[in-house]
């Protein structure tokens, strides 16, 4: 029979709860310290592995959550027994074993005079005891570890954050980041130089951002996750810009079934039409009295070649020009053709813009892959780059493996006249696309000789084809062949004036014959 007074029981239960909470909190603090130590170890591991340290804010929140959860859990599953609490209350509260003896006596139901006296005495003492003074909150001796770890995590980014020990995966990833940063910077420079000569506003806006990113990747100590995040963010911006440009392109594209032709081919076709139109327009402006038949024929070819690609507005302008030519209104036709030309140039610019954005996005994705896979990815990228080249590299006959010169695979630096018509210098009026490398057959050359000591480096040299004499007699050809030759020159992006020279040359040959 339980004779324990209610007040005594309540007092002991209060003490038990306080003890349980203190004990659980101590264990929770221990768990939190271990958790924080784990995060700190992960931060130190970034010296070796390509990991990202947890930010200090998240560390504090997570550690606090661990402490709270462990404390709460232990409070539920490991309560302090009333007798244990009573004994500790006696010991620390100076109750001289009154409470614990009273609990035992009360549980046994003893009814002696002394037993009753003990119960009353213990109850009055427990009622007046100050639990805060008896069981004060005391931090364990190792409590300093957690603030030290928090300070360590807070200082890590500004001190050793981004540092990697040479030869480790983290170092290789950082090298990959720097390498990709350099590559992006160089790509961005070439993109900027191309964008200067074109009406490509989005590409012009994006190119500096890509360059800045590349510079930051080389200069700042970035973790892999941060580098990937920055690349991803820029890639998203470029994607939005691409969608906007694609939307405008779709609005101008002719309605037809099936997929749009590949952008590259469509752009090449447009460029060809622009060249043709520009040539025709220039001819009409320069010589309005010239044979309209020829102009009509050219116009017909242009219309035919652009069927399916030309926007409706352009087709209307071309149709109007054709009518004006038929009416003998060369000037009017020239105006109409000029308007159509402007439309096509605008469309071509949008395609160039889209292509520029696409190439930027591809480069960013490539960098993302290279950084995500670390060193192996970088090596694979280099191997893929080697395989994509059609020319075999000249290997030295000896044992020294050839090294590629730094920058050997980068785009050549911008020449003084790049972007302009050959021989014309830098002019505002563009006569055609920037000259590209001559499409000569590439023949691998092997250097013979004794290998010297030391490293061997190789660089690709692109040169023209070998000059030989013609092996065919001159003979008359049909107009169809002439037209095919003309188209071949257009496809080879031969500037208009050059085509005219070539035609005059063969015409003279024909007259001489």
């Amino acid at each position, binding site marked *: 029979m339980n004779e324990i007074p209610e007040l005594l029981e309540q007092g002991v239960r209060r003490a038990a709860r306080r003890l349980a909470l203190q004990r659980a909190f101590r264990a929770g603090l221990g768990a939190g310290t271990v958790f924080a130590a784990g995060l700190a170890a992960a931060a130190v591991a970034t010296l070796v592995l390509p990991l990202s340290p947890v930010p200090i804010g998240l560390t504090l929140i997570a550690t606090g959550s661990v402490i709270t959860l462990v404390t709460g859990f232990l409070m539920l599953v490991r309560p302090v027994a009333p007798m244990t609490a009573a004994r500790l209350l006696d*010991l620390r509260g100076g109750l001289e074993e009154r409470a614990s003896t009273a609990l035992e006596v009360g549980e046994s139901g003893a009814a002696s005079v002394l037993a009753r006296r003990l119960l009353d005495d213990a109850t009055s003492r427990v009622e007046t005891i100050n639990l805060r003074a008896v069981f004060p909150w005391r931090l364990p001796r190792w409590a300093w570890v957690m603030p030290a770890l928090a300070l360590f995590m807070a200082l890590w980014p500004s001190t050793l954050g981004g540092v990697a020990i040479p030869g480790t995966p983290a170092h290789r990833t950082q090298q990959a980041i720097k390498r990709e940063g350099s590559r992006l910077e160089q790509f961005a420079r070439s993109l900027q130089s191309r964008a200067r000569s074109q009406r490509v506003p989005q590409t012009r806006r994006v190119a500096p951002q890509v360059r800045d990113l590349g510079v930051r990747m080389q200069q700042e100590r970035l973790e892999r996750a941060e580098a990937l995040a920055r690349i991803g963010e820029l890639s998203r911006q470029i994607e939005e810009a691409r969608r906007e440009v694609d939307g405008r392109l779709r609005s101008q594209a002719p309605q037809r079934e099936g997929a749009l032709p590949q952008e590259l081919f469509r752009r090449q076709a447009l460029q060809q039409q622009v060249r043709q139109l520009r040539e025709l327009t220039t001819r009409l402006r320069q010589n309005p009295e010239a044979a309209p038949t020829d102009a009509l024929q050219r116009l017909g070819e242009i219309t035919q070649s652009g069927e399916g690609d030309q926007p409706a507005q352009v087709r209307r302008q071309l149709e109007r020009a054709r009518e004006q030519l038929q009416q003998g209104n060369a000037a009017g036709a020239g105006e109409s053709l000029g308007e159509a030309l402007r439309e096509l140039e605008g469309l071509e610019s949008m395609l160039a813009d889209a292509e520029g954005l696409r190439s930027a996005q591809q480069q960013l994705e490539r960098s993302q892959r290279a950084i995500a896979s670390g060193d192996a990815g970088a090596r694979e990228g280099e191997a893929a780059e080697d395989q994509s080249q059609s020319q075999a590299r000249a290997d030295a006959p000896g044992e020294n493996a050839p090294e590629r010169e730094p920058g050997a695979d980068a785009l050549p630096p911008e020449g003084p006249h790049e972007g302009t018509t050959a021989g014309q210098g830098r002019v505002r009026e563009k006569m055609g696309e920037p000259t590209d490398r001559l499409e000569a057959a590439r023949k691998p050359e092997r250097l013979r000789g004794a290998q010297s000591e030391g490293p061997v480096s190789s660089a690709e040299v692109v040169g023209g084809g070998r000059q030989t004499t013609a092996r065919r007699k001159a003979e008359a050809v049909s107009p169809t062949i002439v037209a095919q030759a003309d188209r071949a020159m257009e496809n080879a992006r031969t500037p208009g004036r050059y085509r005219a020279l070539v035609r005059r040359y063969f015409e003279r040959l024909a007259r001489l014959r």
Partner: protein
Amino acid sequence: MTPEEFTSSFDRIRAEVRKVIVGHETLIDHVLIAFLAGGHVLLEGVPGLGKTLLVKTLAQALELAFSRIQFTPDLMPADIIGTNVVMQDAEGRRYFEFQRGPVFTQVLLADEINRATPKTQSALLEAMQEHAVTAAGNSFQLEEPFFVLATQNPIEMEGTYPLPEAQLDRFMFKVKAEFPSAADLVEIIDRTTVVEQPHPAVVASRDVIRQMLRLAREVEVASHVKAYAARLILATHPGDSRSANMARRYVRYGASPRAVQALILTGKVRALIAGRANISFGDLKALALPSLRHRIILNFEGEAEGVDPDAVILNALDETPELEEAKA
């Protein structure tokens, strides 16, 4: 009897004894506690410290019969317990009559018990243990309460018969009488060298004493306090897993189970004196020295190094925690 009555009676007795005895506050308390616990006391001290006066005063204050036996080497058991004497009645017939010895009293002072032979010692010790005397085949019960205070002179041990350990174990307490201080000596002069000398008055009847003895046994003891007392005793045993360092090194045999009885019984009295109805760890710690010092047998190394058993007990107290869970 209520605890308050117990406390007030004790205070009266103590005050009355202190009226006569100068100093020795702890000694007086220990003697009274052992008395009220139903035990006997072995008092060690040089002559002239007031040991006889203490016991006489106690007996007078409690209105108890008092006897004193001066133990000498030629003392016989019969000198203690009594003997049969031949008597002649009026008609000239002779018969044996048992003449009771000085042990038939309530408060007995056995002075210099270590001077008597073991045989004589054992006669007294049987009376102490059984509260009865056997003589000529007859058993004579001693009147309660029966309290023996035996003394030993620590400086004249030549030609003495030290009490064997088994006999020492029957004493509840072994207390040491310290030499009085200068102030106490002056007080002694003031009290004992004048015409008017203090005489103790009767402050408690035999009935009161019996009630006090019974009430003391009703004091509650918690299980963890009992466990502590047991662990303390085991800490004095060298072979036990819980033994203290010094016990492991210097002790041959530790305290017996009588020690834990002594601890608890005297602890109960002390608790009542303090106004409590339960024993505390403090009670046991305060009474550990007088309860255990005569029950610990040192080994050769301990004796050679002159280790004091008190040091062993204090070491055991240090190394025995009150609560196992208090460590957490």
